[in-house]
């Protein structure tokens, strides 16, 4: 049997661009060395905090969607989430981290966020 391998697309540039995006986003491991140990650890801690923050936010939205929050509760949850988000922004600025850096590749499990 002859194997005729093909790579077929009418849009090669678009696919190369998209594949490039996924190659570079996530570091393979946490970049911690004597020079930048503080930033490396901050990145790990902030990644976990960001994960928890997003989970909290999603849970709140589900409750809004289900109509199980009163006007007062929406007010209070809104205030909490807004403060959390602002605090995260501050911390990201302090440690010079961007949104896309707050992620980890968990191998076969995929990305953390």
């Amino acid at each position, binding site marked *: 049997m002859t194997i005729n391998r093909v790579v077929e697309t009418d*849009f090669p540039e678009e696919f190369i661009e*998209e*594949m490039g995006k996924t190659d570079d986003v996530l570091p393979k491991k946490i970049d911690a060395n004597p020079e930048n140990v503080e930033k490396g650890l901050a990145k790990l801690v902030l990644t976990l905090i960001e994960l928890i923050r997003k989970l909290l936010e999603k849970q709140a939205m589900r409750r809004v*969607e289900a109509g199980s929050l009163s006007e007062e509760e929406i007010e209070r949850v809104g205030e909490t989430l807004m403060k959390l988000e602002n605090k995260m922004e501050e911390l990201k600025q302090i440690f010079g981290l961007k949104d896309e850096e707050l992620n980890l590749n968990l191998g076969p499990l995929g990305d953390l966020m």
Partner: protein
Amino acid sequence: MKLYLYGIIDSSDRIKDSIYGLEGASVYNIPFCDIGAVVSEINQPIQGVTEGAVLEHEAVTEKLMAKFAVLPVRFQTIIDGRDNLLSMMQSYYKDFRNNLERLRNKIEFGIKVIWPSDKIKEHITNTYKKNDKKVSISDDSSNKRFMRDKFEKYELDEGFQAKADKFINVMDTFFSKFAAEKKLKKLKTEDMLLDAVYLVKKDDLDNFREAFEHIKSAHAAFKFLFSGPWPAYNFVILPKNSNLLKDSKQENLFDKVIQHQDLVGANKI
């Protein structure tokens, strides 16, 4: 003498065809029981990942695939001598044998799909605007406005994910009819709706191809990439604790093959 390893095959026989690999070296089979490791001799370390070297590696596996079941090995797998190679073959013989049995007469195809994510989002937003809102949050405070904005984004994200699931489900139903195994990645990026690999029996090759053409013609606004047949890079299963080629500083013979496939694929476009 260092050996450059291309793959494990389901034969202990001598390779009859003349195949040349990296540095133009002759490719031959080192038998172990009823299977074999296909190698060529290499004198110096490979200088980085070049397009030419990847394609030479790939060309060897392509030729092997035509005659044997192949467990493709990652690019740049070098083993320090025949004794180390045979020792590795002995340690993993059972795993190699099981994989070769499972993957015999099957080949891998890659399918990637880009969708117009902006238009999809626009459509979802317009649909929400037209329909009566299930949830209404007043905007009499900054906290509530924050919640309202967040909820609109949440609705959009949920709608976006649901659309992606729907399209992938339709496509996958067609492809799966002719696939023995599959691995799907949804929304690797916002635009990359699907990045999938399917393991297809050689007998079903034409049917699988036809299913792809059908799906492609039914989704004119989407962009498709079809690649293959590849050796079954993504379907080799090894025990979690296997640590192949520890001595030659290779953690695993088969890891990082997705990048390898992508690189070769990209180079061939």
